[in-house]
């Protein structure tokens, strides 16, 4: 018998007499409420969490986006952007293309992308490789990642975040910049990924939410 059939057969025998019981999902799956029963301001909560991870957070109106980005990348050059990121967000940035190998990406000081969804409670941003987020390597190699998140992309909880994602896309969940605590549990930011994460939170017309 091959290893596959062997293992599957052993599992079957081991499970003789074992029933599948239903799973109770009594944990919170919908939007968060505070103790007073009202919705917290999710954008502010996300900002607090990200700052707690030592990310830089900037808030702006849609018409202030380009100047906010410009300030953040002022000291970094050259700047790369995901191919679907609008030129107007950062005229100085060059669009990514397949011809760029990992070593070429290493020459860029900063990268600019959008996001798919962000979870306020945990301070997490999810990128799913859509055109305005790009392939995974571009948010990994340059030292500064500037990520644009719209207020209407912010959800409260992990279940809500996951329900907005499709499992079969390449997804990167980012919660603050790269960090290690391996030496005497002292937190050091930026071991291998971008050492700096800047998040631009863009308010949408309905206000924060």
């Amino acid at each position, binding site marked *: 018998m091959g*290893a*596959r059939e*062997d*293992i*599957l*057969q*052993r*599992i*079957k*025998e*081991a*499970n*003789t007499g*074992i*029933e599948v*019981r*239903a*799973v*109770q*999902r*009594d*944990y*919170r*799956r919908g939007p968060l409420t505070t103790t007073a029963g009202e919705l917290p301001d999710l954008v502010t909560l996300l900002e607090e969490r990200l700052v707690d*991870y030592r990310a830089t957070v900037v808030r702006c109106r849609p018409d202030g986006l380009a100047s906010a980005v410009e300030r953040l990348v002022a000291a970094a050059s050259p700047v790369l952007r995901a191919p679907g990121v609008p030129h107007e967000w950062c005229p100085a940035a060059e669009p990514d293309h397949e011809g760029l190998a*990992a*070593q070429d990406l*290493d020459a860029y000081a900063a990268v600019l992308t959008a996001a798919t969804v962000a979870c306020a409670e*945990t*301070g997490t941003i999810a990128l799913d*490789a859509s055109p305005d987020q790009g392939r*995974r*390597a571009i948010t990994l190699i340059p030292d500064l990642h500037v990520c644009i998140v719209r207020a209407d992309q912010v959800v409260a909880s*992990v*279940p809500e975040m*996951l329900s907005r*994602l499709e*499992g*079969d*896309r*390449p*997804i*990167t*969940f*980012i*919660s603050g*910049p*790269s*960090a*290690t*605590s*391996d*030496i*005497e*549990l*002292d937190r*050091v930011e930026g*071991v*291998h*990924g971008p050492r700096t994460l800047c998040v631009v939170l863009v308010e949408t017309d309905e206000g924060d939410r």
Partner: protein
Amino acid sequence: MSTFLGMPAIHAPRGVGGLRGDESFPKAAKAALGDTQLRANIGRATRTIREKRAAVVEEVPDWEELRLAGQQVKAATMARLDDHLRTLEEAVTRRGGVVHWARDANEANAIIADLILATGETEVVKVKSMVTQEIGLNEALEAQGITATETDLAELIVQLGHDKPSHILVPAIHRNRAEVREIFLREMPGVPPDLTDDPRQLAMAARAHLRQKFLTAKVAVSGANFAVADSGTLLVVESEGNGRMCLTLPETLITVMGIEKVVPTWQDLEVFLQLLPRSSTGERMNPYTSAWTGVTPGDGPQAFHLVLLDNGRTATLGDHVGREVLHCIKCSACMNVCPVYERTGGHAYGSVYPGPIGAVLTPQLTGIEDNSSLPFASSLCGACFDACPVRIDIPSLLVHLRERHTEEQAKEHRLPTPEAAALSLVGWVMQSPRRFRMAETALRMARPFARSGRFRSLPFPLSAWTTSRDAPAPPPETFREWWERTRDQ
């Protein structure tokens, strides 16, 4: 308790991998207890993580509901594990990945070595993974002329220090910054000679050391924290970004995972992605989690292999009580709360899986008689159960495995180990009120031999107990005697 299997159980084979130590737990623990530096490092580290964990768990109002769901998802998954693995295989294959099956460590190592050699490469980068340590992959690859570089900072410290990991989450927990600096100066080519022991400087030295490797590596090997059966998605949860480097930059990615890591649906992740980071690093979420499915044109490795490993897991599944260890998500919370681990450190367990979970998982993977002292390496205080995000009842499992060990000994007419002898003696005594009374009398007669209320050494088989601790002397009056004397008053 143990289920009859039509086929003989496959355990993790001897002579390969990191599940068997050179000496038994009591011996190794005794040496570790003499090392005050080690105890201080570990005590400080576990206390810090414990406090962080408690604070972020406190924040979550539905923590208990999440734990319950985690336990139930795992139990339901195990009950139909064969179906979920078939679904996973089909989904991964549909997305351009290749699935391999390995009965044990030797088979897995051979598959991985062959896959690497077929690319023409002899160097690979690795993401920290418990399962590759379990199967002794690095050593097996070395024997084939392949060099595997660990890229997690702590694993790198362990690898450069020619050392063994001592904790699941922070493998170099037993090293302090001065030791790390020495290791880097000695073993890392091109490291600045004025390197200080500041953790930031040390981390930056590792960054510089590994950068070129990441940018040029053609093959990477990883483990996986979860695999979603219905979409074929694999997930790696990490902090440093070395995982992302390995998972996205090379041309070929080989992922090896224990068959128990599968979850049925994408939705199930909503439970585990909440439970894992808070339990392990005490963070609301770890900095990076990568999810990928097979091969994505133009993004990441264009060749993907998934190796599904048994190595004692189906044998474990065959024990309808002991199988609960397969629910473990390797968060390490139980280690950080365990008073025994805190004093002995991870090396004493002789297995890559230390602490409370190691004490119940390791003997089941290897077959109980190969690690028979481990189920006794616990005080049964119950702290591990309270900390466990998927509610694994480790104390009950310890007791269950102790019984199994005693039974195996009896079956083979072997002289029981001291621990087993002591326990079966207690069982025998407690079976009859007369024996119990006699034992009480015997104990009281022994009182004059105790010094300051403690026995330093007891006669065999109880001597096994007193070689590593004193036993309290019995009280002058037993509860039974006190009851008889006072109940009529």
